[in-house]
């Protein structure tokens, strides 16, 4: 495995592809469950999305990238990057659209590391971009 690229033409063709689109009505239950799971008692998060609401997979990382993008044995989450543009408030309806943003590989100590980057745009009911999230998955 250490010679040659693990990234095939088929995999390259997936970059840019939409893999999930989910719509959430931001209700009291969703806000309070996430605030409770983070254990953040700030009452503000009963009316507005905490940053951790946006880092949640259900908002900024729904959908598994196609299996063909994971040719190696194991997978771990490598990191994330979030931009917060507009507050997301109780009663908003958000659309979270995820696509494959990038694919690259590196040589690790124990062999190839393949990085799969997804990007999610979170728009509100007015079509405004409220937040953006990028997540890196590592296949090794």
């Amino acid at each position: 495995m250490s010679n040659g690229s693990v990234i095939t033409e088929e995999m390259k063709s997936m970059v840019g592809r939409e893999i999930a689109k989910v719509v959430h009505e931001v209700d009291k239950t969703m806000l309070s469950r996430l605030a409770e799971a983070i254990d953040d008692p700030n009452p503000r998060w009963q009316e507005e999305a905490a940053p951790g609401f946006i880092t949640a997979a259900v908002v900024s990382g729904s959908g598994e990238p196609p299996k063909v993008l994971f040719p190696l044995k194991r997978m771990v989450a490598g990191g994330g990057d979030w931009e917060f543009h507009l507050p997301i408030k109780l009663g908003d309806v958000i659309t979270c659209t995820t696509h494959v943003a990038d694919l690259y590989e590196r040589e690790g100590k124990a062999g190839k590391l393949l990085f799969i980057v997804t990007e999610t745009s979170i728009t509100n009911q007015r079509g405004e971009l409220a937040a953006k999230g990028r997540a890196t998955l590592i296949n090794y």
Partner: protein
Amino acid sequence: MAEQIFYEDVKEGSDITPLVKNPTKRQLVKWAGASGDFNELHYDKDFATSLGFPSVIIHGRLKAAFLGQLMTDWIGDKGKLKRLSCNYRGNDLPGETLTCKGKVTKKYVQDSEHVVECEIWTENPKGEKTTPGTAIAVLPSKG
């Protein structure tokens, strides 16, 4: 909540008020349900040890959420968090104290906003930075 912090109150090198978290397995299950992340690595010990992990580990996205709380607690209701990035470098285990920390690396005014850039991280009981990252926020000015 602490008193509102202002742009004028911070210097490059200023520490962010630490946030101490004591995540339990129960909290990981709550996060799995609330956040929709059902990877077994975070609640099934047999699954986790079969992959070579010492036990279940804390979700990276939950650690990112903790770092988000570190920032919003510190910048207060008048501050605005603009960006948060982190790497899930080390594995953190439920039952161990996880301390979120940070410091200001840069401050400047841009487009009439009072911006602070910060280095942030989570620290395990051994003092290792397990989730290093950066954050950008806007603070209110006394101006």
